[in-house]
């Protein structure tokens, strides 16, 4: 019999809810069947911890005296976007410091950037804020140089436009005769390694492949605190090829998420450096999935064997959109440490931490069992496979010709 969000929350409040992780759900369905599992289990918890580039934080640091309307600002020398209001800033995870050597000596090390600023704030460390302004009658001040820390800020919330990618590429270097330095890590020549980045069977959107429960307003684990999904993520692409079980065969859905930085912990918000590429932020994210019916029970029992990812060449195929995937491989194969491409054994590495994904799913399970975390019914579901929504590439239009045509 189908369940409702209200019934499940009643059981959570009463301390009676049956909560399992997405790993445990595999065994439950295997042992008892989908029908019984749908009856028994109320909530399945998921988790993922990986570099998630499209991340950042809004902060409001309070008005200075005399007042300043910040025009340009830097946090530990990392540029923060100030084109909002007087003392609101957005610090993006991949922003690099003003005087970073970047890739001038390739590969650059990218030791510090926006993701590290966010981690420093979460850790409670002092961060140097420098700002300049042009001065107005109501905001006369033109310069600011001060230490700030998280506790002293009015608001600080993580606001990530694209996280929790539903499946992703397996990156290889098929054509360059040197190592290449990518956002998927260092890729050695002649298919020297294959790097992937997904928690597979524990990953949130791979357990709700058609977005039956995850939508706007879904309460989630974000950075060690409670956060929310607030929109589909950028590049959300639900209309991709799927397996018979409904699981996308490559990158598909994404989430925009938000949460209070002041409640988060450094264990789950970590600045990271990607050699020769840049900086990013590793984000811990987990989503509880209510087992409303048998379909959802079946979805949440998805196994690494059932999820495949495309093998993509990052020397030519990805940067120049030259060719399609070199094949598909399952997460079960990837996790053995070796896959086969063109008859060749290729060692694998992951940028997504599976042990940390397990820890998130387990933590979320404990929160729910303790009655500290209730499920929220989304205000709207995300566009799904039938929406017709696709992810477009840029169609460049030559500017000079158009200007001429307009007269």
């Amino acid at each position, binding site marked *: 019999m189908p369940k409702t969000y209200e019934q499940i929350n009643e059981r959570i409040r009463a301390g009676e809810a049956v909560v399992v992780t997405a790993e445990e759900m595999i065994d439950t369905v295997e042992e008892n069947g989908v029908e019984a599992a749908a009856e028994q289990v109320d909530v399945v918890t998921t988790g993922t911890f990986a*570099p998630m580039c499209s991340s950042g934080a809004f902060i409001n640091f309070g008005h200075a005296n005399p007042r300043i309307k910040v025009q340009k600002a830097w946090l530990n020398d990392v540029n923060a976007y100030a084109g909002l209001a007087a003392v609101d800033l957005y610090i993006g995870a991949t922003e690099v410091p003003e005087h970073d050597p970047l890739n001038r000596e390739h590969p650059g090390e990218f030791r510090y950037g926006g993701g590290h600023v966010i981690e420093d704030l979460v850790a409670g460390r002092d961060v140097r804020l420098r700002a300049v302004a042009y001065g107005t009658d109501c905001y006369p001040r033109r310069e600011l140089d001060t230490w700030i820390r998280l506790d002293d800020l009015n608001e600080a919330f993580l606001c990530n436009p694209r996280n929790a990618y539903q499946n992703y590429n397996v990156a290889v270097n098929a054509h360059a005769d040197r190592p290449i330095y990518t956002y998927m890590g260092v890729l050695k020549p002649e298919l020297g390694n294959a790097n992937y980045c997904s928690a597979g069977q524990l990953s949130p959107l791979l357990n709700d492949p058609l977005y039956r429960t995850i939508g706007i307003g879904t309460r989630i684990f974000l950075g060690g605190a409670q956060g929310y999904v607030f929109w589909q993520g950028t590049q959300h692409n639900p209309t991709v090829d799927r397996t018979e079980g409904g699981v996308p065969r490559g990158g598909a859905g994404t989430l925009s998420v938000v949460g209070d930085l002041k409640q988060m912990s450094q264990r789950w918000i*970590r600045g990271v*450096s990607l050699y020769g590429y840049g900086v990013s932020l590793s984000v811990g994210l987990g989503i509880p999935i209510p087992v409303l019916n048998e379909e959802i029970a079946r979805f949440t029992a998805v196994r690494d064997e059932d999820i495949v990812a495309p093998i993509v060449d990052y020397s030519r195929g990805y940067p120049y959109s030259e060719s399609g995937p070199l094949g598909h491989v399952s997460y079960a194969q990837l996790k053995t440490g070796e896959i086969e491409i063109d008859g060749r054994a290729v060692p694998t590495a992951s940028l997504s931490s599976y*042990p940390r994904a397990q820890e998130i799913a387990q933590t979320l399970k404990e929160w729910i069992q303790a009655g500290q975390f209730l499920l929220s019914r989304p205000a709207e579901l995300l566009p799904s496979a039938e929406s017709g929504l696709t992810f477009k590439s840029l169609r460049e239009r030559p500017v000079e010709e158009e200007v001429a045509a307009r007269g």
Partner: protein
Amino acid sequence: MAKARVVFHYPRALIDAPIASRVARDFDLEFNILRANITPDSQGLLVLELSGDPQALSDALEWAGEQGVAVQPLERDVVRDDDLCTQCGACVTICPTAALSRDPRTQEVGFDPEECVACELCVPACPPHAMTVAF
């Protein structure tokens, strides 16, 4: 009499070349292979302890460098800060000796200092800066 512990990193093209034996023979050095890792598919790595006449030793290392071998003196340790490591595993295919490896069952990333030759390739490749050089 001088002694040096060095790591030879061979590019793929040199894997069949008798570099180590020529270093020993042509320069009259004693050599002890501490570790070797050469497979046809990948780059080669040889950890050697060399001893002999100081001038011959330095000439031998220069000669090996001219042949295209990257010669790395082995005098520092690489250490892992377990508090900083996030257990992602980005390092495991960078490490030439499998000192960094992932357990296929648990997906946990282990570091075995005994296997480490301090080539330092993992240091800039570790996203959360968990691998550092200790002098």
